[in-house]
């Protein structure tokens, strides 16, 4: 489904076909021209609905850019990987200057399309690094290991049994990196912690994630790392704690989610917008814009758990956060598949 985001709210459209959405662009885009600097035409192409945790952060940043007058944004969600190159071409043909999205499932084909449109800047989530052979393609990913590590420090202080459950989708680098950083954080405050790690082989099967979490809680886990939807639900039902990932879900689980490692896509997108505007967009790795010191990630406010987390843990979090910011401490980037211990 294709949709157009405009700040006024009056011309928000949700149209069936990409073509129809693009046809509407010329008409609805007009009020934007009044702004001082011309907003850059940005198109998002997502393989999942914009509710999905990871994509929701990209979408949120793009919406913020529209509201700041820096971008003019349309998006197509739930695009099948097989359809992805076609949608890329359609937006490129329509004159969109910056195309954002994720090509984890279409790495090769997407690069072929990128080469066909050298005038268009592509900023795409990818498992591979940038390549000079594709000068108009920059890659990114959610390198939020800094925040994951900090959330681990809190988790280590909150677990009673030292038995922590981790339910992931697939062991791909992005997922592994955050789990490993989380585990490293836990060991700071709970060196003897043990981990139960499982992958459910699906991104969207909350009932399955929930069942997997139940099994871990039955097996003694008293704190769950909620990489997938469904895990916090199991934790809530069984009265154990959870740590969130990428988004803050504490509002839905006020007694369950202690802390969350948040991803902020804004620094990544704003850097790309600035480079497209001054014509300096080249092949680059934007992953570093997700680092804590770039403002690309943060620890969510403790909220309902304010005052319930031990002071020493919070002191360590503050100390490490400062050290990460001034460069005296680096959280290891470890993309290996985490194992149970």
């Amino acid at each position, binding site marked *: 489904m294709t949709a157009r985001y405009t700040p006024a709210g009056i011309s928000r459209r949700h149209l069936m076909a990409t073509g129809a959405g693009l046809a509407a662009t010329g008409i609805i885009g007009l009020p934007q021209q009044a702004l001082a600097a011309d907003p850059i035409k940005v198109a998002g192409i997502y393989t999942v609905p914009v509710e999905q945790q990871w994509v929701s952060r990209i979408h949120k940043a793009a919406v913020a850019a529209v509201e700041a007058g820096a971008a003019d944004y349309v998006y197509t969600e739930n695009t099948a990987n097989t359809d992805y190159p076609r949608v890329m071409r359609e937006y490129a043909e329509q004159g969109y200057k910056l195309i954002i999205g994720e090509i984890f499932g279409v790495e090769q084909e997407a690069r072929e399309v990128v080469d066909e449109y050298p005038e268009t800047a592509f900023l795409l989530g990818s498992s591979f690094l940038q390549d000079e052979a594709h000068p108009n393609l920059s890659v990114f990913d959610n390198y939020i290991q800094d925040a994951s590590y900090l959330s681990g420090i809190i988790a280590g202080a909150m677990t009673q049994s030292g038995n922590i459950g981790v339910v992931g989708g697939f*062991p791909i680098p992005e997922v592994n990196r955050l789990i490993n950083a989380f585990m490293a954080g836990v060991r700071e405050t709970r060196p003897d912690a043990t981990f139960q790690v499982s992958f459910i082989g699906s991104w969207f099967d909350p009932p*399955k994630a929930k069942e997997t979490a139940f099994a871990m809680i039955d097996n003694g886990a008293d704190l769950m790392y909620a990489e997938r939807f469904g895990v916090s*639900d199991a934790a809530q039902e069984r009265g154990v704690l959870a740590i969130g990932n990428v988004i803050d879900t504490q509002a839905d689980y006020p007694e369950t989610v202690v802390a969350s490692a948040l991803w902020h896509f804004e620094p990544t997108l704003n850097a790309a917008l600035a480079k497209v505007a001054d014509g300096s967009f080249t092949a680059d790795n934007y992953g570093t814009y997700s680092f804590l010191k770039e403002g690309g990630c943060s620890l969510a406010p403790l909220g309902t758990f304010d005052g319930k987390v031990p002071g020493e843990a919070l002191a360590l979090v503050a100390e490490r956060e400062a050290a990460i910011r001034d460069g005296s401490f680096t959280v290891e980037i470890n993309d290996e598949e985490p*194992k149970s211990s």
Partner: protein
Amino acid sequence: MEIFDILLTASFWAAAVRIASPLIFATLGELICERAGVLNLGIEGIMVIGAFSGWMAVYLGAPLWAGVGVAMLAGMLFGLLHATLTVPFGLSQHVVGLGVTLLASAVAYFAYRLSLPEVTSPPKIVPFQPVEIPGLSQIPLIGPAFFNQTPLTYLAFVLIAVVSIVLYRTPLGLALRAAGENPASVEAQGLSVTAIRMGAVIVGSGLMAVGGAFLTMSAFSSFFFEMVNGRGWICIALVVFGAWRPGKAALGALLFAAFDALQVRLQQTPLGALVPYQVFLMVPYILSILALVLMSRRAEVPAALMVPFNKGER
């Protein structure tokens, strides 16, 4: 052996029953269709529409049971479409079924986006809660596993009996089975094969949709587009596994669910450190295929399955 320790825990069996419940609804639904002679490959999409519509109704303020009713009606609507195309028109059941799956999934997603254009994470409803059955839930092992479940799970198990009785002990069931074995004999009795087959597909689709609704209204509390995740296709295999008999098919669903609950737990044993997790995820499917191979040797396939019936044709 850790495996026996796992098999002797009530929480393992409770998990197996939970995982089996949506499969039981959808398998019974598919079985009714196939017993009448119609293969319903719309099952996957019909489960999606059931998962969506039931949840949406509750989200909009309907009581939970009304949501189940809405899901069933939505499934029956797509069943009507499937039945119309395959029974009176006699079109390819494979093509129509896959078409219905694609259409129903797309409609569910389209309706979802129209009704919730801007949400950051899918909204939640208060799902069915487990209800303890007094007395029975006190039985060791079996009690907490079978008698501390949500009402929808109880309904699934009651339906196994209901479908069995209707199929084997009533004139309606006889006519339905005959429509799938020898439709000409049904017509000779003065009954309409078209009406029986259409009715079977519509009712069966309604049950499939309730199976989908179980995912959003009992197993979980919000709707995700891809959350049915192939469960419908598993039910097609379960019908074959059960040799087109409701009791056996439900047993197959429970067996599959038990394997699934087992693999999750085995991953946390010392074995899990040695074997890649993908192998564990495969276990329920591999064992089901093996069981299918063994069981289907003696299966009696409805003779007129996938054979369109044209009145008066010889």
